[in-house]
């Protein structure tokens, strides 16, 4: 079914090199050519399995370094799983850590074009959606300036606008709703609501537990790379809060 996500025993290892993270030729000569031979592994995700049906908004919570971003990057296709399989039906669009994905010296318009083409759209499709992307991001005046001159909020608005306008089946968001002023946040919410109603799924990582409770039906709790709990958002947030020993927040309406 379009928009569904199925993970089967997914693990992701990073190679960690003792000492400096950068491998140089000198090091390689001194320690032998076999790369990875002496590198030890860091397991960022361990044996994670879950299913998310389409048409749902799912929260992703956990402490810093618990693997939330790694999981989202795996789903976005930036990383490849070391073990296990990731099955996603339909087109994935992601809005991950801020600032990444844009080329600072290119103008906003050029970045939109690059991003769209990298998503596999044709040049014509990108042109057709260009105006809509710029309009939603409210960047008509600065779209032909290099993005390095943009403020964080402008950056974020453009990224959100691209990620949601290209009509993905799965939308991945990493701690992004905190940026942008109130009126833009409201526009984002409206757009996400429409998304959900059209049977698309959204996966949302956040530390804002109140938002997770109001926005999501289900939630995933990651702890040190392992899936600790997957259930209704309220229950997941309650268990997670208990583990943090802070009182469960009251949902805002």
């Amino acid at each position, binding site marked *: 079914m379009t928009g569904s996500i199925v993970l*089967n*025993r997914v*693990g992701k290892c*990073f*190679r960690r090199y003792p000492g400096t993270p*950068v*491998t*140089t*030729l*000198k090091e*390689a000569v001194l320690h032998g050519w076999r*790369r990875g031979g002496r590198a030890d592994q860091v397991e960022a995700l361990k*044996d994670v399995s879950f299913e998310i049906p389409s048409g749902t908004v799912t929260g992703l919570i956990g402490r810093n370094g618990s693997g939330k971003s790694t999981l989202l*990057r795996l789903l*976005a*296709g*930036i*990383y*490849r*799983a070391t*073990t*296990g*399989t990731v099955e996603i039906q339909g087109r*994935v669009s*992601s809005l*991950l*850590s801020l*600032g*990444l*994905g*844009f*080329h*600072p*010296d*290119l103008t906003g318009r*050029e970045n939109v*074009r*690059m*991003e769209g*083409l*990298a*998503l*596999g759209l*044709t*040049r014509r499709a990108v042109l057709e959606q260009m105006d809509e992307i710029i309009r939603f991001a409210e960047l008509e005046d600065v779209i032909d300036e290099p993005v390095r001159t943009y403020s964080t909020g402008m950056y974020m608005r453009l990224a959100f606008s691209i990620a949601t306008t290209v009509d993905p089946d799965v939308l991945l968001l990493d701690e992004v709703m905190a940026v942008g002023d109130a009126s833009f946040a409201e526009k984002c919410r409206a757009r996400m609501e429409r998304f959900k109603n059209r049977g698309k799924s959204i996966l949302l990582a956040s530390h804002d537990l109140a938002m997770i409770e109001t926005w999501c039906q289900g939630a995933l709790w990651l702890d040190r790379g392992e899936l600790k709990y997957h259930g209704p958002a309220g229950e997941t947030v309650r268990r997670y809060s208990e583990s943090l020993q802070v009182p469960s927040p009251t949902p805002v309406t």
Partner: protein
Amino acid sequence: MIPRPVNTFGARLVRPTVVKYRWLVLEMVSRDLKSRYRRSALGLCWTLLNPILYMSVYSLVFSFYLRAGIEAYVVFVMSGLLPWLWFSGAISDGTASIVSGASFLRGTKFPAAVLPVVPVLSHLMNMLFSLPILFILMAIHHRSGGPCLLALPLVMLSQGLLMAGISSIAGTYNVFYRDLQQLIGHLLTLLMFLHPIMYPLATIPKSMQTYVEWSPLTILFRSYQQIFYEGVFPDFRKLSLVCLFSVGVLLLGGLLLRRQEEYFADSL
């Protein structure tokens, strides 16, 4: 039993990433060309000025100081120089291409295989833009080229495939060993002087000639000299061997990049 990720290399062989993302490649090539001479007063004129300045230097050294005594040396040197500038420019940019594409690779799902191909195409455009200089020099020295110019696309295609392969290999290794980026300029200088590009093959000591003669680069650059300078068809038997070699290098490069691709986002 933990399931293993599926290998899709076979599918990529049938429909390479570069073909699938051709619009992205075109966009990046045009951006590359635009940004290369941005903020320079003469702008696109540098495409013509660069080879003319190189030609002047080599003419001074080989024709005037060393008295190589080659007839119409400017035509000789230019016919090897233009493809060499394509080669060296694209390979040095290609080596850095994946590392400089870090902002794309880390932020979105981005087809890494297109990155090393972009400089090959953008430097090709440069070469095509500067070809008129060569034709003017040929006209001045009463060399018309003639029907053997028809062989030019084949020579260029084979060089392009070879470069795409080398660029993918060098670009991939550079992610893990950044030393390559420092080293590549020197390797290219060495390659240039080892091959008969600025001087004819006959000036090399006899004992070395057989080795140099069969270098793929020699065959390629000899072909350009035959087409532009001598006005004869290149040796198609040797050229087809180079073609095979180029395809082999390209496959190797594609395979290597494909196997290492999953570590790019971790290592950048």
